[in-house]
């Protein structure tokens, strides 16, 4: 049965809650410890980006079942300023906020599927999927 949950990301305490919820979902899908850690870490990066750069937003968690495989899809959305140059943002070491600049690219490497849409002035949506 598909399970869907939506959480808001408005403070750094919410980022912790997102991590816990993602871990819970990952356990239900049957992810092993390594896969759990990967998706939770990716979620942590993206949730923090949503908060720090997007000015807060929401994340949707969905369990997936496709043929014989199961997975987890996370959709992060914000109505923030958007990303002007996505290729640049994905480059390791590039940051506008004083971080390490590895979060977005790292999240992409930790996921199996990664999709990013961003319109300057309107907001950003990032979808990641990890399959078991």
């Amino acid at each position, binding site marked *: 049965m598909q399970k869907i949950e939506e959480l808001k990301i408005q403070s750094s305490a919410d980022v912790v809650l997102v*991590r816990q919820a993602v871990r819970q979902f990952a356990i239900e899908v049957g992810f092993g*410890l390594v896969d759990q*850690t*990967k998706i939770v870490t990716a979620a942590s990066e993206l949730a*923090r980006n949503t908060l720090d750069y997007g000015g807060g937003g929401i994340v949707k968690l969905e369990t997936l079942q496709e043929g014989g495989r199961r997975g987890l899809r996370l959709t992060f959305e914000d109505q923030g300023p958007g990303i002007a140059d996505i290729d640049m943002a994905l480059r390791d070491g590039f940051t506008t906020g004083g971080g390490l600049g590895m979060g977005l690219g790292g999240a992409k490497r930790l996921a199996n599927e990664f999709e990013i849409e961003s319109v300057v002035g309107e907001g950003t949506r990032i979808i990641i999927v990890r399959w078991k």
Partner: protein
Amino acid sequence: MDVTRSSKIPEILKTHEAELLSEWNQELSATNTRKGLIKEAELKEECREFLKLLRIAAQSGNLSNIQAVEWREVREMLTSISRSRSHKGFTPTETATFIFSFKRPLFDRLRQQLHDPAELGDEIWQATDLLDRLGLMVVEAYQKSREEVILRQQEEMMELSTPVVKLWEGILALPIIGTLDSARTQVVMESLLQKIVETGSEVAIIDITGVPTVDTLTAQHLLKTVTAARLMGADCIISGIRPQIAQTIVYLGIDLTDVTTKATLADAFLMALKRMGTTIARK
């Protein structure tokens, strides 16, 4: 609602204060299931005080806006009641019942005094609206005092959860448990640097076995702590890196090559001893 006709409630509160009080007391003592938590006399005194302040505030004629200045004393009193109820262990329902239980005596009185059904309807509406607002305010104040407790505990936990322990002459250990956010890092760094100065230690082991998720921000915080310790003349070893964390760090692309890392605290301790030129032998 007829707004031109002025409400009879202030007058009723004034002329029937004593009866209202005794009926309310009966109502409260009938519904009071927590006699052990609050003394009857104390409860009575609170009722008397509230009724007095309510009467004074109602004389202003303003029954709809309890945020107005004439309701200030009522608000203050209810806030302090909620606070003490929350500390005594009452539930929010029990706390709000203090206000809501006043409805019956007041409505009874209105019914006795007013005979025009339309007027009675209006007055009951006004009264219920007012008491609902006061009741909600009580719950809000209750909630707020609970939140204050949580906040204080969070702060206490933050201090408690970052102990720096001395393992050996010149070797410190810093076991981190939980999420390493910016505020936490600040506390960790301060206590670590302080301890390095106090003990003149040369090696500090930061153990992250208890950190559930290591993401780029956590890594950045760790690196900052390591750099700061290095500036103070102490070498840092990060221990407690579990296999799944190691894999994640690789995918994230975080460069930890400048930092000595070990899988367990025991390994890190042995390495620190070696650096100090000390060995442990079994007897």
